[in-house]
Each structure stands twice: as C-alpha cells, then as structure tokens.
C-alpha cells in the first residue's frame, strides 16, 4: 500500500522507498542474524523451545480474545477503541473481589470448576457493562465527528477508567488466589504446559468458537456483518444500528472480561494499569491478522503470543544482547510498526481499509 501510495505522490520518491526498503532489510537481517547465532550456540534445548511455544500459545489465546473486541468495533465503527485494554482490566480487577472470598471460603478446593466459572462470569459481566457504558457516554454522541475525535475521546476514556479503578480499588497490586486444581503442569507427549496456561488456551479457543458462531449463525450476528459492510444500507434494511453497535461493544467487552480473568489466573496478580500493555498487544494482534477480520484477530493473537515468547531468545540472544527478555515488548511493538507500515491489511489481508484508512 505504501509503495503504491508513495509512487502515487510524485513518482520520484525513490528516497522514501529506499529508506523503507532499508528499514525492512535491517529488521530482517537482525532477525536472521540473531536466529543463526542462537541456533549455532545451541543454548536452548528442545524442551525450552517447546516451553516457549506453549507459553506463547497461552498468552496468544488471551491476546486473541481481547483482539476480538478491537476488531469487531473497528469493523463496524472504523474506530480504535483505545479504552478496550481498560475494559479488560476492569473485569479482571473486579473479579478479584469475588475470587478472594471464594478462596477463603474454600470453594476452589471443593468445586474448582464452578468457582472459576463464577469468577469468569463476574469478570465478563463487569467488562461488558463498562464497555457498554463507555460506548453510550463517550462514543455514541460522536459517531458523526471527524475520525480523530473519537480516538481522543477513547484515550480520555481509557485514562478515566484506569484512574477510576485505581481510586476505587487502590493503587496496589492484588494477588489472585492460587487455585489448587490448577497448580503444576500438564503433560501432553513432549509438551509440558502449566495448567493455568492450558486453561487459558482452552478457554480462549472455546470463547472464540462461541463468538464465531454468534457472528456467523445468529440473526444479530448477521446484522453485525451487515452494519460492518455498510451502515447506511443496513439501516435502510431495517437494522437498528444503535442496538447492533451496543451489542458489538457488549460482546467485545464480555470476551475481554473472560480474557482478563484467564490472564489473571496465569499471571496471578491484578492492578489498575494491567490493561494497558495487553491492550496494545491485542490491538497489534488485531492489526496483524487484518483489522475488522474475526478469524484474523484469532490468528494474529496466537502469532503475536508465539513471536513474543520465542522472539527474544530466537532473534536477540544470538546477537549477544544481554537479558533479551526485557525486549519482548519491543519486539511486539516492532511487529506492530512493521505491520502498520508494510502490510496494513494484515496477514489474512482480504479486506483492506485503504479507502477509509
């Protein structure tokens, strides 16, 4: 897209093109050089690589769940719901206050499944409520405004939510209860995966299939797809746009809430700022898969999770960079920037927002 656009600018933009090519080559060269170096030193055993993979998949499943909210909203409103990471946080954080008493009451000992389901449900419902409220208060009145306006409102909403929850629940980190049934690892042939991670992955895949069914098989799902295709025409067909948009936010919020609780089960702690980084990562995942594209978000999430967990060891260790795991986020952001610049239509790349972006 950039190549086309830049050629379209004046036709002599060799300098910019050259710069972009150099940028691309440098990143690829670093990655290849690092990979070769890492493989030659052979510092990591096969088991370690498999551990990285398993961790990446679990993390990626969570990113994918959050990414669904971004992608659905973008598909319908063409806006980045910057506050979505905070929606995720609100569910996880609030669910803590259900999980903690359940833990002291010993519910997780006796009925681990019911306990986890209850906590997840609470988280999902809270996130859903927050998402719907944000839509109603901050986005709906601005639907006709220029594109930057809702983005700025979203940034504002994001801050408001962070500091609201900080004010309500305190600035400290709360540790999620350790559920006895989810301690230790699960062995699947050569794979050893932490049980919490396995739950996160299974939960994420389950939720994604439910969401996919809703979008593809139900009437409201059909309405969502119609609105995403063309709002005006959908309205002419008798679809209540406001209701569909509200439902989209609710659905995305619900998924984010589930993701939040799963995330909290894995990392075992919650705080008011926990939504920011996963939010940005999930957005990256959504862009990676092709924003507005639901299977793309799922794929993008898993891909990003794996890259992020394998990447530091694979690309950076071979370059002799100390403590490469510190740069896991930098790898994720580099992916984000690269995708935005070179392939804004994403991996699945069918629908391109070129005409609107």
């Amino acid at each position, binding site marked *: 897209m950039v190549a086309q656009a830049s050629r379209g600018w004046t036709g002599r933009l060799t300098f910019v093109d050259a710069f972009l090519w150099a940028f691309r080559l440098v990143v690829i060269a670093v990655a290849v050089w690092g990979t070769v170096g890492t493989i030659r030193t052979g510092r990591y055993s096969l088991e370690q690589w498999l551990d990285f993979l398993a961790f990446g998949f679990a993390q990626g499943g969570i990113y994918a769940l959050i990414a669904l909210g971004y992608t659905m909203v973008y598909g319908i409103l063409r806006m980045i719901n910057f506050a979505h990471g905070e929606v995720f946080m609100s569910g996880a954080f609030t669910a803590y206050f259900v999980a903690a008493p359940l833990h002291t009451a010993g519910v997780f000992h006796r009925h681990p499944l019911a306990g986890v389901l209850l906590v997840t449900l609470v988280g999902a419902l809270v996130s859903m409520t927050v998402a719907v409220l944000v839509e109603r208060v901050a986005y709906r009145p601005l639907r006709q405004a220029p594109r930057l306006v809702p983005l700025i409102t979203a940034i504002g909403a*994001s801050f408001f939510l962070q500091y609201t929850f900080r*004010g309500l629940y305190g600035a400290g980190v709360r540790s999620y209860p350790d559920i006895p049934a989810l301690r230790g690892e699960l062995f699947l042939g050569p794979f050893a995966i932490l049980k919490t991670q396995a739950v996160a992955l299974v939960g994420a895949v389950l939720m994604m299939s439910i969401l996919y069914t809703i979008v593809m098989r139900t009437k409201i799902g059909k309405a969502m797809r119609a609105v995403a295709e063309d709002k005006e025409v959908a309205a002419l067909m008798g679809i209540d746009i406001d209701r569909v948009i509200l439902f989209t936010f609710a659905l995305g919020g619900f998924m984010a809430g589930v993701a939040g609780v799963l995330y909290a089960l894995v990392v075992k702690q919650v705080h008011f700022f926990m939504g920011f980084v996963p939010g940005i990562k999930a957005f990256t995942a959504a862009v990676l898969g092709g924003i507005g594209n639901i299977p793309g978000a799922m794929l993008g999430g898993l891909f990003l999770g794996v890259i992020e967990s394998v990447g530091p060891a694979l690309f950076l260790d071979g370059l002799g960079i100390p403590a490469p795991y510190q740069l896991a986020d930098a790898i994720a952001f580099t992916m984000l920037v690269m995708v935005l610049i070179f392939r804004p239509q994403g991996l699945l790349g069918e629908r391109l927002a070129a005409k609107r972006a």
Partner: protein
Amino acid sequence: MLRVGLIFGVVAVFLSLVGLVEALHARWVVDGWLSLGQALLLILGLAAGYRAGRGATGGRAVLVGAGSGAVAGAVVAGFLLLGEAVNLRSMFVNASPTLYEILSFGRPARASVPVEVAGGAALGALGALIPALPAGVRRPLRAGVQAVLLVSVFQELIVLLLQPQALTSVREFLFVAGAGPSLPGMTAVFAVFALASVAWARSEPQVRAQVARLPRSGQIGMRLVGVGLGAVALLLLPVVGGSFVSQVLVIVGLYTLMALGLNIDVGFAGLLDLGFVAFFAISAYTVALLTSTGPLGIAHWSFWAAVPVAVVVSAIAGVILGIPVLGIRGDYLAIATLGFGEIVRLLVLSDALRPWLGGSQGILAIPKPVLFGFELREPQHLYYLTLVFAALAAFASWRLQNSKVGRAWMAIREDEDVAQALGIDLVATKLLAFGLGAALAGLGGAIFAVMLGSVFPHSFNLLISINVLALIIVGGLGSIPGVILGSVALIGLPELLREFGEFRFLVYGVALVAMMLLRPEGLWPAAAVRRELRAEEAIPERPPEPVPAAGSTAVTVQGPTGG
C-alpha cells in the same frame, strides 16, 4: 426527575468512592464550618435541582428540583445503609469511616436517611430556583461563591504569597493561623467580589463603548499596554512566588515547549503523534551525554554548546521516525508513533544499551548551565531560561502558522488528497512538520535534563505524550495561546495542588472526553477554527450582520476626526 436525581446520586457516591470527597474534605472553605468536600456535595445537590428544573417554570420547577434532589439524597443514604451493613472497605479502599462521617454529617446511617433526603430536596429546590433569580442577584452571588471556593482551593499558595511582613495583617485576617480560611475573611472576600461584580455589570457597557470610541491607534496602544503588563508580570512571577512557584512554572514551560511542538504535528498538520515523548527523551539524553561530568558523559561540553546539537538531533530523529509513517494516516499513525515511542523507551531501559545510556539508572551528574560565570542553579534562574525558550518557540510557531508551509500543513490536515492535488509536496511538508515539532520538544528536553540534573528512562513514558496531547486539545488544537493556556491549566494547576495529584489523570480523562463532547474547538480556539464555526453559525442569520459592520465602519470614520 428520577433519572437526573439518580445520575447525580450515583455521581456523588462515585466521587466518594474514588476518594475525591475525602481528599477535598481535608481543606476548609471556612474554617470549622464547611469543608471543600462538603461544598462539593452541596454543589452536586444544587446542580441536580438546577438540571432537573431546567425547562420547567415557577412552582413546577421547584417541585421537580426538590424531587430530583431528594432522589439523589436517597441514593447517598442507600449507600450509607449499605456501607453499614456490609464491609465495603475490603473492596473499595476509600469506603472509610471518615467518608461515612462526611456523607452522613456524623450521624449513624439509619438516622441520616431523612436528613439526606430532606437536605437533597432542599438543595434541589434551591438549585431549581437559581434560573428564576434576576441576573442582578445571580451574577454577584456566583462571583462571590466562585471567589471563596478559589481561595479555598488555592489557600496554601495564597498563604505562601502573603508571607512578606507587610502582608501579615491581611494573612491573619483571611486565614486562621495553621488552619483554613477564616469566617470574617471569607465573608469579606465574598462581599468584595459580589460588589465588584455588581460594579462591573453597571459600568461594563460604558467601558466597552469608551474603548470602542477610542481611535484605532489608541486601541492598539491599549493592547500593547496589556501585553507589556503581561510581560512584566511574567518576569516578576518568580520574584514574587519564590522557588516553589518557579519550579512549577518551569514545568509548565517544559510542557508548553513540548505542546508547541506537538501542536505543529497535530494542530497544524493533523498528524496525531502518540510517541512524541521520544523526541523530548532523545534531546534530554543528548544533553546528558554531552555535558555530564559522570562516567557516562562523553564530551563535557557546556550546556549552551549542547543545546543546538540536542535540538538538531531530535529534529533528525523526528524526520527519521517520520519517514516510515509517511504513508499512514489518522488513527493508524497514532498507534504506529505510539509503537515508536515505546520502542525508544524500552531500548533505553534495556540492558543492551546500558553501557552507553545507563539503563534504568540513567545518566547522572548533569551540570547546571553557566551564563557569563553565573550558574543557573535555582528554579528561578531556570525559569527565565525556560521563558526565553518558550517565547522563541511560540514566536517560531506563530511565524510558521501563517507561512506558506503553515498553510500547506493546514491543507494536509483538512484533506491530504486535495492538498496533493493542489501541488503540495506531501513528503517534504510532512517531514518538515515532524522535524520542527521534534525540534521544539528538543528544546524542552534540554531544559528538562538540566532541571533534574539527571535523566532516567522512567521520566519518558507514554503518560507524558498523553499529557501533552490532552493539554493541546483542552487548550485548542492549532492555537498557540490555547496551548499555553492548556499547559497552565492542565500542568500548572495540578502541580500547585500536589495533594490532589492522584486525581490528576482522572480529571484528564474527563477533560478529554468532555472537551470532545462539549467544546471540541478547545478553551482558546485557533482563529481559523473559530472563523469556521462562526461562519457555520452565521449562514442562517445573515440579515442582522450588516448592522454592526456598518457601525464599526462609522467608528473608524469618526476616529480620526475625534482624535
């Protein structure tokens, strides 16, 4: 009525749980009588009635207002009952006994129910009556109340300013020693401002008419006198305010510099950059590396030699980070630049660059600038440095705004495709915006490095970029005075009110959303934006337009003969 009451009740409970009410309760409006937290609750009650009573008239408005006030009071009472029955504190950290005491005026929850409802109803009825008051009563009342509240909010600052010996008697009259504002003092403040409001309302038309009757040169002269007075005030501020106020002003100045830079990107050219803090950081690190006397310093240059280099480096960084995102627009651009900003921060923070940039420990031992053998050590000294830099930056942006390139930026902001069709070189124009914006942020970064005497990666997080964005939006996108006003309001005020610091970002969030909903053009909109908005409003009501126009020409014709 029910809905308005519920909303205001929930807002009251929300503000209490977030901790704002209790924090404000620590300040007296009138010592021993009324705290700011209580005042907030009273204002909410009045507002509920005012809001609900709007549109209704007379007795009906009062009834509706009282009803919604009562509903709001009932919500608060319900919260108190709940708080008594359940221990909310394990979940909500601010649901403390103190909070309950403030909300229930020291009564047990059950006994407070009738008080809350009746009090809410009374306030609501009063609130609904406000619009019915004649303007001659309403305005002085409002002026007086506002003045008293402002004195309460800024009491520490005012006490600080009244420290000199000559002002001791004023201080002792206004404030109870070691506590809040005094009752007689606040009565006096209220009376003075209410009377001033009355006096101003009487004489305003005459004054305006007189000013309008002045010859053109006289009007310009008056404006020049105003500007001159403003400049003198700016120069005297640190002398009067001392080191605390100067420190705050330096920070305001730093943000103004960054905001003027980002204003070139976002306000002029419409390029939303969320990684803007990167350029501030790059410049600060450049100054640190070039001047530090610590182990990481590489050149031991003087500050004055390092500043131009730092500004150029950050401008180059702006261009380099700008090239890859040339083809990206709108919100994608925002996210891509956010990504760049975070990458820069993570790299600086990482162990990989530690031998050069010091990792999370940063670079220490940056000497203060020395001017003709005089070390700019105190915040007061740095203030003048910041003032000079900010004035330069404001002048540069002002000149740029109306230049050829400034108009090209605005064309790009309005429509990139059309701008290109008009023959504007998008690449050069956009890169110029990125580079110049980064250069202005670089000026700020250089001062930041010497202000702290050290640089750490933690000082350069995304929050700074968001702060800067928030202040230019609140001030008015593309408007230079708006940017300055925005940084005074969003940076200066929170710095002065440190004890409410934890609510700062909460307020930012609300401010961003509220500005977009209610006043998207900002507090002090750019002339172009204002003109557009006026033009839209003026189209349907063309006929009355010529009358004032004719009047003003008459004035200019009269001017020379009169003068």
